[in-house]
């Protein structure tokens, strides 16, 4: 990031290659279709580029990047909501941009965490998929460590319920197939 701030020509490639996969997963896990996730990823990088001055050298990069990515996601959510509200009177409503499409083809992880409430999903994706610490997640979400721990605890509770309720259903399906 420091090299990027000093306009090292190799820095954009290195930055894009290192954080793009995790960011794409972050958007995908938050109900975005593949196309939308890629759009949001590009928008995030443009914002990162515009805000690159605000990164303080020596600080952790991930909270800075995810705070920006989260802001892009929230902005997009509000934009989509406004469009849907304004177009509610139309005869034929278009499908909300990629809410459920591709869920089946997505990674199982994405499909599993997609069933969690927004706040819990965000925390689990940052902790497990991006490999951030609780402190980093708290910084990225403008929250406190205690609040993040509480959300993670609730998310584990929801995941436990999801995973334990899934297992018998699968067995039931297998039995029916046999």
């Amino acid at each position, binding site marked *: 990031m420091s090299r990027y701030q000093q306009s090292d020509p190799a820095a954009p490639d290195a930055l894009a290659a290192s954080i793009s996969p995790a960011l794409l997963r972050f958007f995908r896990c938050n109900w975005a279709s593949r196309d939308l996730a890629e759009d949001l990823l590009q928008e995030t990088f443009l914002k990162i580029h515009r805000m690159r001055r605000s990164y303080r050298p020596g600080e952790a990069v991930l909270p800075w990047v995810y705070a*920006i990515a989260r802001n892009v996601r929230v902005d997009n959510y509000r934009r989509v909501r406004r469009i849907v509200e304004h177009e509610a009177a139309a005869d034929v409503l278009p499908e909300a941009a990629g809410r459920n499409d591709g869920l089946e083809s997505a990674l199982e992880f994405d499909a599993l965490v997609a069933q969690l409430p927004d706040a819990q999903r965000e925390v689990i994706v940052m902790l497990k998929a991006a490999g951030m610490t609780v402190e980093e997640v708290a910084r990225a979400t403008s929250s406190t460590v205690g609040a993040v721990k509480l959300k993670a605890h609730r998310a584990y509770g929801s*995941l436990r319920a999801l995973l334990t309720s899934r297992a018998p259903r699968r067995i039931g399906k297998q039995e029916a197939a046999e």
Partner: protein
Amino acid sequence: MNRTDIDRVLVEKLSAQSAGCELRPELTQAIAERIGRNLSAVRPLRPFGYYAAGFALIFLAPIVAALGMLSTNGIARMSPAAIVLAFGALAICAALLAVSLAADMSPGSRRPAPSVVLTGGILLSLAAIFCVLLPYRTETSFWVQSGLCLQLGVVFAVPTAALAWGLLRRGAVLSPAMSGATAGLLGGLAGLAVLEIHCPDHNLPHVLAAHWGAALVCTAAAWLAGALMETRVRRA
């Protein structure tokens, strides 16, 4: 199923590859090219403490100016314990706001509390302190006196908030509405401190309506201005 089991399942699911979630190399390349096109060197933000001190100075400036320009009738009528409690609370609140504003300049910074909690908490705690400290009496010229004090408080609060916003804009503000409210409250607290020093009327309804009211009005106005800015930016 305990946490370790859930972690194991999550790791297994994460490591399972799927064509649907792989990053297209041309996308990474396009991003790198797009941001690489306008690449120029930038000077990073100064250390966190530098800006926190800047916001603290912005808070102190109108108070120092008021000490030179206005009478100190208010502070003269306060008991030493009330001075320590009222100005101690104001100093702590201003310090927390200065740290929060410095954190707002760089996304993902460590902050004392979420902005909403901090702003609401400060306003409510100050109101509670005034309710505990000050006596309740009915006044004959309540509206006239309160109107004058409110006006004076806002006159000192608005330039302070504007200066804080000017410094804030040197960083990257992700949420102009909440950062605006925080800057507005910093200005409002400066106005409140000026009124506490100058105004001899320490009657509870007057202090809540005019002194604390100045902080509330400034916070609300700054939040509104920030929200309008946020909406305009999002629509653009």
